[in-house]
């Protein structure tokens, strides 16, 4: 079995660019990724591409060949759709294809165009990640679903909105130096608590923004990296995926994410590490409560205690295990289909010493990326390790 290396990665800036097509966004990300990787496009064996709402935002299906063309790659291409975990599932399949010897070089990526839909339109589009008959038709929105989980968490384990506000403040702080981030601005606890409510208890600053953007990474086999003398110190050493019932109300727990726990356990075992080895993580904080649930599912915090992690400084940049040093979905932005690969890109840079926040993890060897779809009916977890 071949080890999988991150040869290079590239991101567009995440933010508000309603006029830009996803093919243009993705092209930009791939140009950056190929420059970073120093791998010729002709060597690419496959493109695995994540996208969620292209039918709604661009009236476009069949993205695979369109995006291969945009990237200048003549290789078979497949689109992956698992709501917000779309490109996380693409990364997982890329890893497995390289490991089993099917492919040596895989271009993996994703893009999403969202802001052209406006707030109401994007809210409607995001809602289709839930069960249309039994959730959406009752008026449940995507923020509403996470608000249901947040309220259930407060009822079961305690905690309050101010705890969640610390998650938002931390992630904004982390994004200050990230030039790709949608928000490079600090916020205070009061900003979060006094923001307009979206779905109580969650307000505007508990929610990730609506974003346009793209991400791409060139993954290669260890053999390919050696043969071509690539500078690729970061490997993807573990992969895991979990699933759960589609509707939140059909889950055993309303305030836990078993699919992410399953994905994490599988990825840790695959890499031969455990939670105590994790030095840094990028987790799927589409809402502040989602970061709390992710930390607990990944065993980085005991169940019921993740709520205080940011407030008590355990997950801040100078804390024991910094979480979302990129700014996370909250501040970096969440162009849905790009998010899973963007986490891999940020984490690889953090571990390799190429990130503005690398100084906070200069001794780190092991990082984790957690990508979640819907109310975590889909989850992927990847373990990244760096040669030191």
């Amino acid at each position: 079995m071949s080890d999988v290396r991150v040869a290079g990665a590239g991101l567009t800036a995440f933010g508000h660019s309603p006029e830009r097509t996803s093919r243009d966004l993705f092209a930009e990300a791939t140009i950056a990724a190929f420059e970073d990787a120093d791998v010729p496009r002709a060597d690419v064996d496959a493109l695995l591409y994540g996208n969620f709402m292209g039918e709604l935002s661009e009236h476009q299906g069949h993205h695979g060949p369109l995006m291969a063309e945009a990237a200048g790659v003549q290789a078979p291409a497949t689109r992956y759709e698992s709501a917000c975990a779309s490109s996380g599932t693409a990364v997982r399949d890329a890893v497995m294809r390289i490991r089993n010897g099917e492919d040596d070089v895989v271009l993996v990526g994703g893009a999403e165009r969202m802001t052209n839909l406006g707030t109401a339109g994007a809210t409607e589009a995001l809602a289709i990640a839930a069960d249309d008959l039994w959730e959406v038709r009752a008026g449940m929105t995507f923020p509403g679903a996470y608000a249901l989980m947040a309220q259930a968490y407060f009822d079961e384990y305690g905690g309050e909105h101010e705890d969640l506000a610390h998650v938002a403040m931390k992630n904004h702080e982390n994004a200050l130096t990230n030039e790709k981030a949608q928000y490079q601005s600090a916020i205070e606890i009061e900003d979060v608590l006094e923001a307009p409510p979206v779905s109580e208890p969650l307000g505007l600053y508990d929610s990730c923004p609506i974003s346009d953007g793209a991400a791409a990474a060139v993954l290669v086999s260890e053999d390919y990296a050696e043969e071509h003398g690539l500078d690729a110190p970061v490997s993807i050493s573990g992969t895991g995926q979990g699933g759960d019932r589609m509707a939140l109300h059909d889950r055993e727990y309303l305030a836990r994410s078993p699919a992410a726990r399953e994905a994490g356990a599988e990825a840790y075992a695959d890499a031969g590490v455990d939670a105590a080895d994790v030095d840094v993580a990028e987790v799927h904080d589409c809402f502040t409560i989602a970061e709390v649930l992710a930390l607990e599912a990944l065993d980085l915090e005991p169940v019921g205690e993740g709520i205080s992690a940011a407030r008590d400084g355990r997950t801040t940049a100078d804390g024991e295990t910094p979480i979302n040093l990129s700014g996370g979905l909250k501040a970096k932005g969440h162009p849905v289909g790009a998010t899973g690969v963007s986490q891999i890109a940020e984490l690889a840079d953090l571990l390799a010493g190429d990130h503005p926040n690398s100084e906070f993890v200069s001794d780190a060897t092991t990082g984790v990326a957690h990508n979640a779809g819907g109310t975590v009916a889909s989850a992927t977890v990847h373990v990244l390790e760096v040669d030191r």
Partner: protein
Amino acid sequence: MSDADDVQDAGFDEWLDAAEEDAAYCLECPEGHASLPPRRVCPDCGATDLEETALPDSGEIETFTVTHVPTPAFEEDAPYATAVAAFGPVRLTGQVVEFDLETVETGLEVELEIAVSETTGERVLGFGPV
């Protein structure tokens, strides 16, 4: 919401019809796993002999939220409360109706009530006072 107005969603619309007649049900397999229609296979164990079982008259709210930023289909309804409530062996997601929003809380006892969206006129699974 993409369906033409005159086309029903088999299984789901019949369930709403039944709930309007106070005859809501879930589907139970021989092992006692309960689920919601349309359903041919038990999602827990794969059994295919599913039987309709009446739901209790009242349920209990397990979590809730008040939504201020809705999808376009609920534009005129906002702000409104959405809750997950347990009705015997299943939970349902519904809009809390006929309660003051401030009084909605976990543990509240509710009855199924099929309401109508103020925005679209479509039927909405709702939870009303007992």
